[in-house]
């Protein structure tokens, strides 16, 4: 199955999971689904992916479900009592979820440690950390960025899901753009920007960056649309939080079907 055809199917899955769970963070999951679809199925031996923006975990679960790592019956337990699928990833449950996240600003320092360990061991593995743009407000981002540069972690790729919305406003309204390319360039990162919904482009860029052993850590600023694929959820703060009623769900599914026709049988 071509990855592109997955984009609609997994969006429908994310909607179904969150509708049944009456849960929120839907816009965040739809925002970074395509980034995960670019990275997760395309890992080489030893590569690590860390979802630092843990609130988008329904997208991660959906991708791992499609990859066969999380069975359907487990997916059905999302948010339920006695489940391992919490609203932010739980620790020590799945090999592809090496770290429980949910409090922002944890994934990048962890990624530093994995990348440094791989360097010491002479491994060619790549560590990829997916952050949100709001998350880059966290002070650990700046501690971790200096560490990555000082330790020449060219095997580390930070991907920022830049949908321009954070907890209670747009990134411009809150602290300013802490995911601005010039900030990261000034820190000493190799900065690339990409359309965060273009799977082929992200994957190509990622694989180019992996080959660039120049002693410089990489950041990929993925410009995205919050709520991507569901017209009424796109580019709004509301769908960071809201959960769907029956009407929302019906409308959302129809919107995905229209926007991703290739996913229809």
């Amino acid at each position, binding site marked *: 199955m071509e990855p592109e055809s997955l984009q609609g199917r997994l969006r429908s899955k994310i909607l179904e999971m969150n509708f049944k769970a009456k849960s929120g963070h839907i816009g965040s999951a739809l925002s970074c689904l395509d980034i995960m679809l670019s990275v997760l199925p395309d890992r080489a031996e030893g590569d690590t992916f860390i979802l630092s923006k843990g609130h988008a975990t329904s997208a991660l679960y959906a991708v791992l479900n499609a990859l066969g790592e999380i069975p359907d019956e487990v997916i059905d337990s999302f948010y339920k009592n006695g489940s391992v699928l919490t609203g932010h990833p739980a*620790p020590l449950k799945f090999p592809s979820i090496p770290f*429980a996240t949910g409090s922002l600003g*944890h994934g990048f*320092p*962890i990624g530093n*440690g*994995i990348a*440094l*360990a791989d360097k*010491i061991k002479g491994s060619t593995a790549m560590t990829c950390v997916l952050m949100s743009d709001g998350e880059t407000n966290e002070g650990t981002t700046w501690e971790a960025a200096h560490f990555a540069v000082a330790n020449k972690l060219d095997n580390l790729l930070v991907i920022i899901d830049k949908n321009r919305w954070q907890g209670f406003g747009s990134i411009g309204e809150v602290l300013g753009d802490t995911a601005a390319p010039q900030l990261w360039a000034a820190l000493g990162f190799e900065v690339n920007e990409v359309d965060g919904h273009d799977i082929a482009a992200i994957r190509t860029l990622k694989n180019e960056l992996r080959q660039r052993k120049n002693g410089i850590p990489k950041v990929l600023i993925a410009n995205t649309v919050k709520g991507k694929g569901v017209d009424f959820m796109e580019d709004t703060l509301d769908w960071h939080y809201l959960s769907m009623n029956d009407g929302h769900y019906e409308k959302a599914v129809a919107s995905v079907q229209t926007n991703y026709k290739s996913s229809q049988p």
Partner: protein
Amino acid sequence: MRKHFSNYIENVADKYDDLVFVTGDLGYNALENLRDKLGNRFINAGVAEQNMIGMAAGMAYRGYRVVCYSIAPFVVYRCLEQMRNDVCFHELPVFIAGNGGGYHYGALGSSHHALEDLAVLSGLPNMRCYVPAFLDDMNTCMDEMFERRLPAYLRLGVGKPMPASFTPTAYGARRTVANAQLTVVAQSPIINNVLQALQNDGLDGVTDVFVVNRMPLTDLPADIAHSLSTCKRLLTVEEHVAVGGLGASVAYQAAALGIAVEKYVSVCAHGYPNGLYGNQSYHHEVNGMDIAGLSRTLHTFFENA
């Protein structure tokens, strides 16, 4: 203890080729030996403790045993969430080594003291806190820390050799007598003040002394329970606040075992009750854990005897 600590690490560096030592930009004139010995397994993470602990979790995930060194307050409080979420939740062998527990850094001020470190850390899942009282039990603590391969905190202070009268135990050490009238349970090098006070006051022969060098204390050791059941009088001494500390743990465990204690006094840190600061000895005096203060407390147990 710091020199003893760095010598220990240097000595096990070959045995544990998965040992990584990370410092939060501290160790001038103390850790140069480790930097030379460990090569690329010695990492200065800079003045950035949160990244240091998260990074350590990442290295531990890749199979390393990671020691993170700083002064106690900096490596406990600033990065607590990294310890809980990144290290403890994932059962990773990250060992934080904090130099100068309690009032150790004295006149440098309250920012440099660690009076609540054990309360803060010992409730975390999979965490074990080690509080050596003597240079001798430091080795035992560190041996266990490395072999256990789970999250740990090592609180370093100023250590003296263990007196010959003490017997090492699984929880620390003890010195018991035949006709004890008082059970003393202490933690950290403050035990040296307790021992001096007991000796000065001629109370060695009537006192059972237990040193507990690890937290949390989830079960009261049988010998302590036996002593307490017999003496029914308890003194706990710790350079730590009462909440979440040794005394609270011993009292809780004693109550759970149904041991009737007739008199209990806790000597512990009360912060800065007079609003004034000084060296470690000054703070010991203010909190009644200097030798004279401990003598006064000991007399309250024996004044009617």
